[in-house]
């Protein structure tokens, strides 16, 4: 991301102590979050986690019970939505069915008293940007899902807001189109350079598009980091479980050391002593029948194959370890790697590099 080019077209968002309660339930529980200027930040979480509530609070559509939302230096918490100057793409697109495509896009410009010729120019430019040139006179119900999505997008940025909010904008599209739009959206973000807050429950989408991901659950932020960090170094069991596939193996603690079976895994990280710890294993990090390997850099497991599943580009092996834990192993079916030929019932040895080991606390925070 080229930060220097976007300074004047984007605003940072600073959220402090944001709280919203529905009865006994916390939709937002003292959320603190800093979204950098020009950043693409994704709010990721299961349904009901509070991610949409947070987005709606930023847009001004719901009234939090307490807290602060700043756009740049300006406190916005009391500002009505129509004065917040943020663009938003709704999950339903919320295109006005009684207006044509061009009228929809011109709507925010009309409200800002942009004169007619400039309006036309900017609408056409926005249509160009979303690759809908020449469709301005169409009616909304004459458009396909993908086209509607683009109109909604054009309408959200045509008035040059410095913050863009998107609420699961791709969830109504089929898989292929969705994947293409992910790339286009990312591209557009680069072009516009606006601060973007994106809500999704699709972790792959979040990993693909974001500069940073804020994982949210039960109204609390679980981790805010770059995608690679979120994936490789989840800071708790929830994130580890929610992002990517994983098997979690509880660790035994002896003194300051953590063990799985007799194998030492690592030292106890510097956290309160009473917390339990678990080993997180990503299926694609496990190696089958590694042969001779360096014991210092590798951790070995023995088990019995339960099931072998062919899934196209990868194959999945379900293995029951000797201590009874079931782990899955994913391996490429490409010619470069040895194919998994193990039949159910056969004994296998699995291995994982110590550098791929993830250890997370599973004490109080375990769900």
């Amino acid at each position: 991301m080229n930060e220097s080019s976007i300074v004047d077209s984007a605003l940072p968002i600073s959220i402090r102590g944001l709280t919203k309660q529905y009865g006994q339930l916390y939709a937002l529980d003292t959320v603190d979050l800093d979204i950098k200027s020009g950043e693409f930040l994704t709010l990721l979480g299961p349904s009901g986690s509070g991610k949409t509530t947070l987005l709606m609070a930023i847009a001004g559509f719901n009234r939090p019970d307490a807290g602060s939302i700043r756009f740049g230096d300006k406190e916005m918490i009391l500002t009505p939505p129509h004065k917040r100057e943020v663009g938003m793409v709704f999950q339903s697109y919320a295109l006005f069915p009684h207006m044509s495509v061009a009228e929809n896009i011109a709507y925010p410009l009309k409200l800002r008293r942009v004169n007619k010729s400039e309006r036309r120019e900017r609408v056409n430019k926005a249509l160009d940007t979303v690759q809908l040139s020449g469709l301005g006179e169409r009616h909304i119900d004459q458009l396909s899902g993908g086209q509607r999505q683009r109109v909604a997008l054009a309408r959200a940025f045509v008035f040059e807001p410095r913050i863009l909010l998107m609420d699961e904008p791709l969830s109504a599209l089929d898989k292929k189109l969705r994947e293409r739009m992910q790339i286009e959206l990312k591209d557009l973000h680069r072009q516009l350079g606006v601060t973007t807050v994106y809500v999704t429950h699709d972790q792959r989408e979040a990993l693909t598009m974001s500069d940073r991901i804020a994982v949210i659950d039960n109204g609390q932020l679980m981790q805010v980091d770059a995608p690679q960090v979120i994936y490789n170094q989840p800071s708790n069991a929830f994130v580890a479980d929610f992002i990517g596939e994983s098997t979690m193996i509880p660790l035994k603690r002896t003194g300051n050391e953590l063990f799985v079976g007799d194998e030492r895994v690592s030292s106890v990280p510097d956290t309160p002593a009473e917390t339990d710890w678990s080993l997180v294993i990503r299926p694609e990090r496990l190696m089958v029948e590694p042969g001779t390997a360096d014991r210092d850099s590798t951790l070995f497991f023995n088990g019995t194959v339960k099931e072998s599943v062919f899934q196209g580009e990868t194959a999945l092996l379900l293995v029951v370890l000797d201590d009874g834990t079931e782990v899955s192993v994913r391996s490429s079916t490409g010619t470069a790697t040895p194919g998994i030929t193990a039949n159910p019932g056969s004994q296998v040895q699995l291995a994982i590099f110590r550098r791929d080991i993830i250890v997370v606390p599973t004490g109080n925070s375990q769900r």
Partner: protein
Amino acid sequence: MSKTSAETVVENNQTGNQFPAVSDDNRVALAEQEKREQWKLLSLTFPALVVIALVILIPVGWLFYLSFIGKAGGFSLENYQKMIEYKSYARTFTTTFQVSFLTTLICILLGYPLAYFLAQLPGRWVGFFMLAVLLPFWTSLLVRTYAWLVLLQRKGIINDFAINMGLWESPIKLVHNMTGTLIGMAHIMLPFLVLPLYNAMKKIDRDMMHAASNLGASPARAFWTVYMPLSLPGMVAGSLIVFVLCLGFYVTPAVLGGGRVIMVSTQITAILENQFNWGAASALGVVLLIATLLVLFIAGRVLKLDAALFGKS
């Protein structure tokens, strides 16, 4: 997929080679089957068509026929000539359309906020308030109309109360005139407007208003540019129902109009009761019917214009 089904597919592929690429087998039979099903579907509408013929076409045809029968018994235009001869007919038509128009207008002014309120209510309250709106439907028209008389007349509850409170000195004439008629009519007609309007409003996505305000529209602006146009089809439908029902109204203007608000229906009754003159009454009915159809036609044209503006929705 299990192994066995995979095998079956392979077998089919092999035996499939026996069939020619384009087959005429069963083509005729299939076409006939489709036709039969279409006829069956059509036959379902048959009872409705019969009912329409019996209840609408025949009586209306009879009405037309009668309207051209003079007092002497033969074909005559005298019933229509009379409508030109006496000014009362033009006046009652004017009154009828005036009352209908004003009632519709009042219903819109009262019904729109009411429907909006209902559409915003959380589910569990809608039932209760809807019941309140619909309650008049279950009360006899006559009872409701006379209830207004009790409220509005010279020594009625409203005048008594207002005079006791010192709001006004002497009784205000609230009934036995146009005012009373409109109050009573609007009360009876309100549900007919609110129901379709509520339905239309219920269909408006919450996100529409959010989107408008997000794009910079003040609540008022968002209402006029987005909510209002989207609720318009429901409002037009409701208004048409109210307007057309008003055109044929009899009881309420008769009771609350004090004999001053003479609608076409009143005049039809007067002619029937006093002259037993079916022809003259039929002619009035025919003119009212044609005028009503004309209104519907014009409204239809306007609606089509709307449809063009709104797309198919």
